[in-house]
């Protein structure tokens, strides 16, 4: 295992110390393991709180700041955080108008946030939860824990965060978050696995000519393992899966993210984005906003995920609203 770390046990604490040192706009509570805005809670405004296992940076800590999250709760690498963290985050971030928990749909995340919501409720903090489940690689059936949450998290956090910033109430902020999730679909392909510091060896094995189609952000297996394909074919099979789940008609407007899983060079993400743009153009579906880069990663995994959100006017206006976080910043 080759990692730029001091010890597998201290990765999270060390990284949080780094975040604290690097970003004066953030406040990092190393004890409670939460990242909040340096400015404290926004009185009278809804606070968006997210969290999940670490190893997906910049998600979520990189999205804390005006126009997006109020707080992030990073768990151990690939392990959901604990209720104490979300409770501390809720207490630190609540401006009196309640908090929205943005939760990716994994059993661990759901259970821990559920417990935290109960505890926060006991503390008199109003809590609404937005469950993100956009990964079409896994069907939502009685045979699964439901669809996994992935790239749409970034869209939910940006758009709901913008509405919260404008002073909307708890129900409205939660509702736009749920609408963004409902309008979003993701699909990922891994070219190589990744290694958690604690495990010390790759979560799965892929032969030199193989790729994992429909991989999850923790390296969860996908739909199938296939021979490595050119970027255009990888893009086509990912977008086919997305369009099959949510058909998009010519003229419809979308926000699209081509996201690197951590170990894929940006030049390759642009190669993939060219193929994405072509795929959309051929169908007359419009990409009106986009992100190309590393936004929700899986440590050093090679590969990319594709997220498509069918956006309405309100979503686009909120997308364009100012945001000032370490990983996403414009208009500020």
């Amino acid at each position: 295992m080759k990692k730029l770390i001091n010890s597998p046990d201290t990765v999270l604490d060390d990284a949080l110390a780094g975040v604290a040192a690097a970003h004066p706009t953030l406040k990092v509570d190393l004890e409670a393991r939460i990242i909040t805005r340096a400015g404290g809670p926004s009185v009278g405004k809804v606070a968006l709180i997210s969290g999940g296992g670490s190893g997906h940076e910049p998600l979520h800590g990189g999205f804390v700041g005006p126009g997006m999250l109020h707080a992030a709760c990073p768990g151990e690498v690939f392990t959901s955080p604990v209720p104490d963290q979300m409770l501390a985050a809720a207490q630190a971030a609540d401006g009196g108008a309640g908090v929205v928990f943005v939760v990716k749909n994994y059993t661990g995340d759901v259970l821990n946030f559920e417990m935290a919501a109960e505890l926060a409720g006991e503390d008199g903090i109003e809590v609404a939860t937005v469950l993100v489940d956009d990964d079409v690689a896994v069907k939502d059936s009685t045979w699964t824990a439901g669809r996994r949450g992935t790239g749409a998290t970034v869209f939910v956090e940006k758009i709901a965060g913008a509405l919260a910033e404008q002073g909307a109430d708890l129900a409205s902020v939660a509702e736009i978050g749920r609408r963004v999730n409902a309008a979003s679909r993701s699909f990922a392909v891994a070219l190589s696995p990744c290694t958690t510091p604690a495990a010390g060896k790759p979560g799965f094995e892929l032969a030199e000519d193989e790729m994992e189609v429909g991989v999850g952000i923790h390296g969860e297996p996908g739909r199938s393992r296939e021979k490595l394909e050119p970027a255009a074919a990888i893009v086509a099979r990912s977008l086919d899966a997305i369009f099959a789940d949510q058909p998009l008609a010519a003229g419809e407007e979308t926000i699209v993210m081509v996201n690197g899983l951590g170990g894929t060079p940006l030049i390759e993400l642009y190669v993939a984005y060219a193929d994405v743009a072509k795929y959309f153009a051929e169908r007359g579906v419009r990409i009106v906003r986009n992100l190309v880069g590393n936004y929700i990663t899986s440590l050093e995994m090679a590969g990319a995920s594709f997220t498509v959100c069918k956006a309405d006017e309100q979503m686009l206006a909120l997308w364009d609203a100012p945001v000032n976080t370490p990983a996403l910043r414009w208009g500020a």
Partner: protein
Amino acid sequence: MDIHQTRTWVRSIAAAMDQHKDHLTQLDSAIGDADHGVNMQRGFTAVVAALDGYEPAGVGDVLVKTGTTLISKVGGAAGPLYGTFFRATGKQLTGPVADAEQLAAALDAGLAGVQKLGAAVPGDKTMVDALTPALEAFGAAARAGEDEATAAEKAAEAAETGAKDTIPLQARKGRASYLGSRSTGHQDPGATSTALIFRTLAEVLKP
């Protein structure tokens, strides 16, 4: 089971998790995300620390503290589930000792908590597949008038069988469910840690 034995049980679980960390992680890497061993070890290490200097009034206090600490330190699916199990079990046990029947009823409450939270039923390939036969065996022994040591030994055996019996199952809950039919042929890590928990109980209570 008295307070001292309860403490010893929890400490022994911590030792067992240390010892079997790699095995649990290996099982979890086959059908999960390779962290169950680390999670359990981190959790029970914290529990041992939390119990240090703690003065419980009853058997249940030890278990409630154990559960609360697991919830605060583990994360993932196992943290809330095991945390709830120990908390719900402990809440039933107010006295300084618990006999076999009291313990049986309390453990049943623990399982009920797990199922209320995680909605898993037997056959879903989760810790419930080890907990259910273990508690059935424990309850049957207790009702038959056997002592705790015997009940715990039978529970441990049933949990071990239950864990092994998850191998052919297809997961319907948790991360393993994403594997679909590829989850068959592998033993569930959570069911395996449950078997360890009952094996240590049997060892601690062995006269």
